[in-house]
């Protein structure tokens, strides 16, 4: 393709989506700085600089993914899928063990989380699979079962790491895709029912810390100095922010280490923002996510074909559940799970995965049919 045509494509971008993304990314860097801040003159980890590097790389991926026609990308669906399964298998064998879980594949301080790759690969694979089913076929059980199989394999591998949060998030993603693709609601309901029946089995497979997190969610006053610590400190951070917040770098929960320094810049970054910017800040964050999510749904609605619609829906579902579970977790609405906040939380793999997903959304928008 010629350069002019590429520029033409860029001009068709969804600027709202890009704007919200940049706003969140910039805010993320600022609050990662705040989350690692330890008082004036104190040495602090430079996560925020790393995050800027990740955004730099992410922007390149974003543009690359946005400009190559998504239909071309999806033709490679099986490759992406196989690659993801391969990485998931590799991480189980050769992954770095951090806090008893093998989630990282990498060399030294650089590394990727195959689970993040898998989320995107699953969205593409399921969308591609559903796209090729005729409407009649979609009404049959086989479609549902095949989908569950496509999702289930990586899910089991992620669960084995263990990374409960990432494994769980695949469930709403696949349900969203099936739902939008026209699978019978009755079928989905039956699958959900079966899932509920299987829950006790899953429970027996959980590690004790995972069970603790779930029981603490049901009763936050239980063991506030132990497993309830993170939740309680996060609630104090969010709550003490009040309406207007304490001001940038004025939050004490992360500065003093009440909000543990290992989780403040990533999984609990929202608590830092809420403490320093109050309810006003919370509204801004949720507002920006609303822009991204509704842009995503509009992209799904205006997509050139069903494939684009499905891809966009899957991405929206992924982002929405990340946001809902993460923010819900910081205020005790959801159990504590290791799910980061898209674009805000510190973490290379997830930043890249999110940027790629948003690039894909832009891609679908750019290639929409213009009437």
């Amino acid at each position, binding site marked *: 393709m010629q350069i002019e045509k590429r520029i033409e494509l860029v001009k068709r971008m969804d600027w709202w989506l890009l704007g919200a993304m940049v706003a969140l990314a910039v805010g993320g860097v600022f609050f990662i700085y705040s989350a690692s801040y330890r008082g004036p003159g104190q040495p602090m980890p430079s996560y925020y600089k790393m995050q800027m590097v990740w955004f730099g790389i992410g922007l390149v991926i974003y543009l690359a993914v946005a400009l190559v026609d998504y239909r071309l990308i999806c033709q490679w669906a099986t490759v992406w899928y196989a690659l993801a399964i391969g990485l998931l298998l590799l991480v189980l064998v050769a992954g770095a063990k951090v806090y008893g879980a093998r989630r990282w594949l990498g060399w030294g301080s650089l590394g990727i989380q195959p689970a993040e790759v898998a989320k995107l690969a699953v969205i593409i694979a399921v969308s591609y699979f559903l796209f090729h089913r005729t409407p009649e076929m979609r009404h049959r059980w086989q479609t549902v079962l095949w989908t569950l199989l496509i999702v289930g394999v990586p899910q089991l591998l992620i669960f084995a790491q263990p990374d409960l949060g990432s494994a769980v998030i695949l469930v709403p993603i696949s349900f969203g895709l099936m739902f939008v693709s026209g699978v019978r609601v009755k079928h989905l309901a039956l699958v959900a029912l079966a899932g509920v029946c299987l829950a006790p089995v899953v429970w027996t497979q959980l590690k004790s810390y995972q069970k603790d997190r779930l029981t603490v969610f049901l009763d936050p006053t239980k063991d506030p100095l132990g497993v309830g610590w993170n939740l309680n400190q996060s609630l104090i951070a969010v709550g003490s922010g009040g309406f207007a917040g304490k001001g940038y770098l004025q939050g004490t929960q992360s500065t003093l280490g*009440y909000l543990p320094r290992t989780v403040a810049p990533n999984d609990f970054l929202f608590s830092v923002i809420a403490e320093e910017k109050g309810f006003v800040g919370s509204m801004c964050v949720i507002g920006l996510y609303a822009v991204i999510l509704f842009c995503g749904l509009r992209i799904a609605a205006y997509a050139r074909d069903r494939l684009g619609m499905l891809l966009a829906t899957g991405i929206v579902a992924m982002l929405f559940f990340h946001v809902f579970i993460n923010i819900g977790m910081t205020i005790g609405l959801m159990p504590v799970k290791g799910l980061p906040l898209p674009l805000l939380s510190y973490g290379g793999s997830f930043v890249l995965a999110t940027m790629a997903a948003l690039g894909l959304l832009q891609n679908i928008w750019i290639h929409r049919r213009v009437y």
Partner: protein
Amino acid sequence: MIILRSFRDRNPRLEAMGIIVGVGLFVLLVALWRVQVSHGEHYDNRQDAQSLRRIRIPAARGEIVDRNGVVLANNRPSYDIVIYLEQLNRMSKRQDVVQVAQASLGALSQTLQMPVGLSDRDVRIHYQLRRPIPLPVWRDVKAEQVAAFAERASTLPGADLIVMPVRQYPQGSLAAHVLGYVGKAQQDGEEEEIERYYYYQPDSVGKQGIEHACDELLRGAPGGKTIRVSPGGTMVGEIGEKTAERGGRVTLTLDARIQRIVEEALARAPVPAGKDVKGAAVVLDPRTGEVLALASAPSFDPNVFNPGTPDAVITALMTDKVRRPMYNRAIGGAYAPGSTFKTITLLAGLESGAISPNDTVTCTGSLQIGNWHRSFGCWNHAGHGSVDAFTAIKESCDVFFYREGMKTGVEAITKVAAEFGLGQPTGFDLGSERKGLVPSPAWKLTQRGERWWDGDTAQLAIGQSFLLVTPLQMANVAATFANRGISWKPFIVERVESADGAVIRRGMPQVRGRLSAAPQQIETVRHAMLGAVRDMDGTAHHAAVSGLSVAGKSGTAEYDTAQGRQKRVWFIGFAPYDEPQVAVAVVLEDGDSGGHTAAPVAGAILAGIFQKSEDREALANRDAYAD
């Protein structure tokens, strides 16, 4: 909604997705509103509770000075050797902080040659609860130990020398019972309170005397710092600081010079050989009620109550049941007044008309009252012969007062005793005084279940019976005679100034009461009291001071105690006779007689106050008289 409709046109299920996303985000907003706005304050408080700690810095206690500005109590620096567990922990690299601390203390103990008195538990509790503040290891160390520590300071990590104010009494035991002492405040706060406050040292509170009575004025306002701590309890910053406000300065009516004279005179009291002096003496200004001296023996050194003193020493002092040095006999001791009470009986008789100054009674050495199996004896078994009121006081004739007391009657006597303030607290501002007892027929019936009879009245008339008075009350009786019937309320706090010099409280002379007797009746008693000291045959002659006209009355009350029969010996009096400037009361718990044991003490006191020598002739003839 327009967006959602556009979704529906394409795919109705996209609209459903949109609704799910919208509702989800709305739920988050509502939940955040609840946490941040509705319950924001609750979480704010929880945050303060977990991360804010207050460090209290004690205020320096105010000074206590005498009427001339002589310092009786102030503060001196105490050098405490402390360790900072926070620093030790930082250096220890994951070793147990208690072990590190004890090892460091062991080394310190060797260099300073002082044993360590801290248990592992003390260290752990301090580490857990009060980590940012220093842990005192040795308090109030001596100068050479300060020097030894300073020499090696650089090689002793985590250890430091801090200076804390400690109460001191520059005059030693002088006026110990008036000043009192300070001790640790009871920390009976709740657990949470203790956890949220850090104390550099417990607040000192006055435990007795002026330190106790004026505690709030002396104490000042403690200062403090609010600090933030990390989850581990390490200090991470200061939020606010308030400097401690020095306590107020208390000026007493006491005169340190007179107090010293009184205490020395008391110490040299001619008590029977081998016995401790136990007793009290009070000197008042009869014109105002100001207390010029107030002493109790045996005494103690209030400097003992500092943080460096071993507990055993203090316990020994507090539990000495034999000498009872902490006990302020001048206001807390209630004794039978003995013959000093005859002044009151005489005034009551004169006032009621039962006695006329010229009445005479013949004393044969004893008197039979009613049909009691024993006769009531006079101290002079040989008998005084014919005595009038003047002689009866001067020579302290018991028979005269048996007879004339019974004629006067118990009601008249107790009425006048009440006018002098006996049987009731004087309202003295030092507090904790006993009120004594003036018995009456009604009292005897309810308390003893026995009827009052003439013999009780006769005993009351000579100050025995069930009568109980304090030395302060008797000093006030002397002052009332000195003052010709006007009785002032005794007080000792002249004024209290705040740290900035403003007068917060001023002790004002207050008339407590007036005698109802006629002036010439009071004069009759005064004159007899003059005779008792002035005349060579007066029983109180040992109180005489040459060049000074002293009036007074001695007394000896026999008393059954656990140590056998003892005599409470008294002297009350005033001087100079015409224009009295001081009134004095002296009591000794065990002595030969008022005239022999208490009067010389009073004489020495008065001679000292007026800077005159004691009556040499009287001293030479000390054993020639008895009462």
